[in-house]
């Protein structure tokens, strides 16, 4: 360690702004520049070190001992700045406080526990696809499929009532913007923070949740002493914050991928069991969650560069997922690729706890579409929606040709 500090490498410096609109809308060129500049790049504008190569991003993600989350996983350092809301007990917590909420939620969302949802969601997806095709062959795929399906399936599974679900996407958009700098995107949400937070917080109460959903099971864990009653609503809040926008933009990434790669759509139609792989490949290729920060708990070196204690690092998940040192022909969406090991869901103790839920939603929707749709194509230019963390969409104009 001492020796490493003495020989610390001075990293290349970049004055780029990863949160500028043009970069958020087209992150590829910056990602490539950062990867090529070195294993660690200093971003002068925000006084943080950035990692864009797969090797370093993966290593930092799993190393919770040296890179903590409790000081926030956005640019703000909670040691010095007040969080905009009470911190998440999962995303923004470290061991040992992270243990109990993680354990409870992991058991509820583990694959064996989701089996009972499988039939329900496949039926729901069939119903939705039938309805969409009945309404016409041209539509905004973002609204009628990528948003409509998770906004029905997931809140049902959590146990939310039918009213006010249109608040979920704006709340998520706000929460994911808040990980970035206090730029115009954060300012644009400011007038709704109080209202949306109040709505979401009210949904986390036991009496607001159905008796058989994920939410009720979180409260039952509190009855058994596995969580405190103070923790239970915050764990429910994690589901509502992290479980909707991410899946919506992951599904939109799938639709965009297939609309622009017709041969891959034919491959999925021939082998619908590839639906999960297709979803993970789309998550690798588009990386709906683009970035997260960590905070060094001590002086740490990464590839020879000193990361001083109490400073932030910015991990570019999207850049790591297209690192040519890890992936062959990384810019290509390819169902023959094995996307295993991508960091689109993160890695390590904070890895997306809802990944199995997301895969099940994707499997249901893609399987239903593959059965009913011969071809998907764009009818216009899809529009992105800038967000400080999410690779998100504003519209995805599609035309489908139903199968005979």
């Amino acid at each position, binding site marked *: 360690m001492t020796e*490493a500090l003495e020989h610390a490498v001075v990293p290349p410096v970049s004055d780029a702004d990863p949160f500028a609109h043009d970069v958020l809308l087209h992150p590829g060129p910056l990602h490539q520049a950062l990867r090529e500049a070195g294993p660690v790049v200093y971003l002068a504008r925000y006084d943080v070190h950035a990692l864009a190569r797969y*090797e370093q991003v993966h290593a930092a993600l799993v190393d919770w*001992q040296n890179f903590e989350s409790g000081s926030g996983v956005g640019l703000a350092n909670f040691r010095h700045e007040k969080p905009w809301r009470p911190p998440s007990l999962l995303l923004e917590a470290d*061991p*040992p406080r992270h243990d109990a909420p993680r354990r409870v939620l992991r*058991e509820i969302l583990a694959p064996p526990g989701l089996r009972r949802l499988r039939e329900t969601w496949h039926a729901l997806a069939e119903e939705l696809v039938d309805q969409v095709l009945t309404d016409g062959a041209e539509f905004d795929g973002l609204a009628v499929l990528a948003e409509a399906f998770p906004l029905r399936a997931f809140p049902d599974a959590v146990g939310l009532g039918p009213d006010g679900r249109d608040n979920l996407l704006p709340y998520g958009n706000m929460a994911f913007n808040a990980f970035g700098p206090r730029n115009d995107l954060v300012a644009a949400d400011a007038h709704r923070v109080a209202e949306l937070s109040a709505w979401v917080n009210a949904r986390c109460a036991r009496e607001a949740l159905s008796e058989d959903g994920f939410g009720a099971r979180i409260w039952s864990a509190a009855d058994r002493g596995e969580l405190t009653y103070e923790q239970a609503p915050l764990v429910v809040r994690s589901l509502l914050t992290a479980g909707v926008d991410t899946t919506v933009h992951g599904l939109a990434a799938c639709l965009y991928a297939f609309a622009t790669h017709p041969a891959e759509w034919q491959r999925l139609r021939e082998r619908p069991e590839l639906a999960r792989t297709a979803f993970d490949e789309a998550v690798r290729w588009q990386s709906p969650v683009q970035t997260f920060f960590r905070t060094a708990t001590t002086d740490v*070196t990464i590839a020879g560069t000193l990361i001083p204690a109490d400073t932030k690092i910015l991990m570019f998940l999207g850049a790591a997922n297209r690192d040519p040192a890890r992936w062959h022909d990384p810019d290509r969406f390819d169902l023959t690729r094995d996307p*295993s090991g991508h960091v689109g869901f993160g890695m390590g103790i904070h890895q997306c706890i809802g990944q199995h839920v997301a895969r099940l939603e994707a499997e249901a929707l893609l399987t239903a579409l593959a059965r009913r749709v011969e071809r998907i194509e764009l009818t216009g230019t899809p529009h992105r929606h800038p967000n400080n963390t999410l690779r998100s969409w504003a519209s995805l104009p599609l035309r489908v040709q139903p199968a005979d």
Partner: protein
Amino acid sequence: MVGSSAVADAGSDIGEGRSAPRNAATLTVSAKEEVAEGVVSLTLAHPRGARLPDWTPGSHIDLVLPEGTTRQYSLCGDRWDAYTYRIAVLREPVGRWGSPRSSEAGSGGVAGSGGVAGSGGVAGSGRGSAYVHDRLRPGDPVGIGGPRNHFPLVPSEKYLFIAGGIGITPLLPMVRQAELLGADWQLLYGGRTRSSMAFREELTGAYGGRVRVVPQDELGLLDLAAWLGTPRPDTRVYCCGPAPLLTAVEAACASWPPYALRTERFTAARQTPPVREAPFEVVLRRTGRTVTVTPDVSVLEAVRSAGADVLTSCEQGTCGTCLTPVLEGRPDHRDSVLADHQRAADDCMLLCVSRSCGDRLVLDL
């Protein structure tokens, strides 16, 4: 700091980033040390210095010895050290108690709901401990499964920890954690004699008055009723030790609120056949292909080589992405994900770490 996953010889740098070691299940004994009369501690590390799977206090691992026996031991080291595990092994006469093994946490409170699901002792368990004491040496390879945790530290303002003998092992990381959390805690630690009680000095040195050491030959049996006092809703009681101690603690906690007491019992591991040394066959039902899995490859690697598409993520048995339906055969489960009842159903397995008990598995691939 040392590298993340694959290589440690880079010294102070984060090393190679490709996820899991190829054979995560084989570790090396890096140190062996007598820590009390009849108790040795083993330090285990990855042969190439990779990070080991993360764990939480109360976790145990399966230790697969070169002679083929599998024993379960609580992790008693420091989870902030991602590169080693520590366990402590009591030399037991053949036919005496086995290793700590938890009750199902879900069985919950003492009053009415039972508290302890595990059954009693097991014959023949001394064999594994004798091997560890007499034959296992630094540098030797050992197989591991897990870590798994049936004995997690739940949030509480106050904790009362009760250890009997080698039952101190899961409680050791717990008291450290209670301290870190700023909880109010006490430890009552009983044993046959002072010199037989592992980690006694470490505990009294670090925590002083919070720890009460009661060697039976000097001070007699533990006075549980007096030490536990009146039931308190803000307190959780954790106990690990031999069956008579647990029975006594259950009785002493009978009037405590439900879920107040959590126990881990010295009991039999689920009766598992010896670890399979021989290759086995895996049949991929959908394609009809059969592939032979030799001891040096994982089921995951084998089925991929036979053309099966299996999505994975952590490849350490912790994330659950590669969970695959098992149509025939009995898996040898080594993951950290499935609960006991899910393992016992034998209808699914994690291909990255789990193997086969028998000659053949049929997978829905």
